[in-house]
């Protein structure tokens, strides 16, 4: 019993939980509305973008890779789905095409990393930049409005009154991927590859296959985010989602995903997402100037990285001393 308590207190998630609880108490003390149903719905609504990105990104980070093209893949998906629907393609077909586009993007990223041996940081940044430019070309830098109410509803229906559909989808994805990571063969291999790709390969695991699947997976998830955002905004914007993949990395690292690969879990990521978004929302509610909110986000990221650094160093020390 005692050891169970100690394990809970020792877990990284517990620290996170305390930080979040403290933030909630402070924000509510300053403004009671922080915990109102409307505001909670607000938090959920803004959590979905970062949170859904964080699902695919966390898997990549755990496997030792990353994808900086997710935000622009999502943006591109939003633009494409709007253009397709305006051209008369039914929304279901348009959504399928756009998800396929995400998968192809993932394959391109995987090709650069696994076949040509590029560093993911650079090559995904390249793909991202290309998409950013292409979107401006396709739209002439104008938003593409969508006039399809059936499609709009994807972004606005609430499930069980409180959960906006996109947020609900995020929760389902988090749960599904949590189970995949924790209990399946693929999940185990993912951790092993992230922990040590050389050892994994010599023990019969194919690291390139694992990361290829994850890049494709991430591309599809990014396109889904882009499509749902387009539904909510009633348009595709060539400037949407900018920087939200970096926010996803912030959330993942806050949630205890090791930046060098090998560890992390979806429960932690969930807490990371909620901390990041409720913190941002809380600053709005208590009336902090929007420029300072950006500063606060940066401070939170650096704090998360510092936490990860010390955690990793403590772990290395422990490994070395034994």
């Amino acid at each position, binding site marked *: 019993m005692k050891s169970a308590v100690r394990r809970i207190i020792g877990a990284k998630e517990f620290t996170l939980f305390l930080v979040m609880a403290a933030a909630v108490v402070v924000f509510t003390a300053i403004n009671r509305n922080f915990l109102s149903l409307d505001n909670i719905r607000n938090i959920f609504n803004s959590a979905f973008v970062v949170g859904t990105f964080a699902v695919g990104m966390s898997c990549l980070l755990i496997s030792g890779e990353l994808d900086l093209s997710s935000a622009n893949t999502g943006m591109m998906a939003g633009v494409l789905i709007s253009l397709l629907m305006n051209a008369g393609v039914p929304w279901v077909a348009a959504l399928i095409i756009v998800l396929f586009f995400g998968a192809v993007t993932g394959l391109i990223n995987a090709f650069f990393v696994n076949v040509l041996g590029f560093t993911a940081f650079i090559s995904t940044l390249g793909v991202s930049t290309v998409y950013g430019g292409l979107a401006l070309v396709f739209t002439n830098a104008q938003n593409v409005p969508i006039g399809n109410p059936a499609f709009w509803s994807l972004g606005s229906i609430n499930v069980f009154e409180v959960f906006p559909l996109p947020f609900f989808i995020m929760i389902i994805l988090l749960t599904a991927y949590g189970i995949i990571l924790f*209990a*399946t*063969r693929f999940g*185990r291999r993912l951790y*092993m590859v992230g*922990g040590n790709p050389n050892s994994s390969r*010599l*023990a*019969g695991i*194919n690291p390139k296959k694992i990361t290829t699947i994850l890049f494709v997976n991430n591309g599809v998830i990014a396109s889904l985010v882009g499509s749902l955002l387009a539904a909510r905004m009633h348009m595709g914007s060539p400037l949407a989602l900018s920087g939200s993949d970096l926010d996803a990395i912030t959330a993942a690292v806050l949630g205890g995903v090791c930046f060098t690969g090998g560890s992390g879990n979806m429960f932690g990521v969930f807490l990371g997402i909620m901390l990041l978004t409720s913190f941002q929302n809380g600053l709005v509610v208590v009336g902090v100037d929007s420029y300072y909110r950006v500063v606060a986000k940066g401070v939170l990221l650096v704090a998360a990285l510092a936490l990860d650094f010390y955690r990793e160093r403590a772990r290395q020390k422990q490994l070395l001393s034994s």
Partner: protein
Amino acid sequence: MEKLLEFNNISKAYPGVQALDDVGFSVKGGRVAALMGENGAGKSTLLKILSGDIRPDAGGISIDGKAQSFESPHRSLQASISVIYQERQLVNDMSVMENIFFEDLPVSGPGFVNRSELRRGTQEILDVFGLPIKPADIVGRLSVAHQQMVEIMKAYRRDSDIIAFDEPTAPLTDKEIDILFRLIAKLKERGKIILYVSHRMAEVFRISDEIIVLKDGRLVNSFETARTDEAELVRAMIGRDIGDTYANLNRSDNIGDVLLSVKDLVAKGVHGVSFELRRGEVLGFAGLIGAGRTETMRAIFGADPIISGEITLEGKKVRFRSPKDAIANGVALCPEDRKEQGLVLGRSIRDNISMPVLSKVKKGPFLDVRAEESLAGEAVRTYKIKTPSSEKQAGELSGGNQQKIILGRWTSGKMDTKVLILDEPTKGIDVGTKAEVYQMVCDFAGLGIGVIFISSELTEVINVSDNIIVMRDGRITGRVARREATEERVLALAMSDYQESMERMV
């Protein structure tokens, strides 16, 4: 005044190994002292202490009677010591001249590099060496031999009083070796102190004045080169204290038909290797580090590409395209570097053992943790892995226990291992666990597994294996059965030149 370098009772321990044990000797100016000994005898550790790379636990170095304390490589350089390691320490993307004058670039004005002075100084050194290299050549584009010469020129430029070479001739061709030896002779005349580590008998006899032999971290003896011979040196390097560990090994000696046959295998660092492994046989691979044994096995295992050659497993031609492929066919490899290539240190013992058989411990779409647990438990019991539970992280265990995890991985109830390749399985392991590993090797063979046992420790490879293959420079230089194997004979094969051994075999 004549210079004097003294090593005073130096000791250095690493976890589980006494790398140097009370080693003391001195070298006078104008003399070349060769350091010899098997792999792991302590030569490299000694050089690292001389260069200030590591610090001894006890004892120290004095120069001209003055005790020195090197807190860092920088202090060692200041004391006029240059150590040239086997691993080149060059900046590949920079030019020859920038590398040679790396620590001391000539500057003019407010700190601009004086390139004409740099070029002139470098050309001067190149003229001394007589090499076809230009000062502005990029180091990374030179041949390996020329890169090694740049490393030597770097030390020459410093004009250090004490120069140590660690196997300098390994990458060199005869032409550069001649240049190097003439240079060493010149340095000798100028009263420099030279330390020379080499495995090559002929070289050592050609250039050294005295020979210092180390074994297991202790200084065995020192000889005047003119008054000793090859046989005496080999005897000193091997020593006489072979315990009865080996006599007590329980072997089955039941060797069956051919299991694995390799013909004319060519891969990176492997130049036409052929051998046969039988069921129940322990086939030792002896040789010095870098002889191409690891490369041979990695190619067979599908970890590195094969250029040409034929591999037959149980009568069927095979060529594994990946380790996964090899494992599916019953071939397993325990790599030399346990931490970097064997284990995932941050994961549990259980996870590390079930790694290759995850598809056999499934319950529907999920992993069957209980089945995994029983695999891990079995390994912990069979190999007496010292741990409170199989949940413990692999990185928290000692080297010997880590090795047992990998052995457990390849011999678990879900594996069907026919060929087990062990690359230096006893490296960095304490003596007691070593004996356990030897018995395990014999037990595997007793089960009908063909075991390939790579080891750079002569005593163990000779005494554990049924047959021994000796490699050098990517080629097989000899085959000996245990009954006929003597350490002298195997060491001679491991160090001999390929041509010589061909003549001997004919």
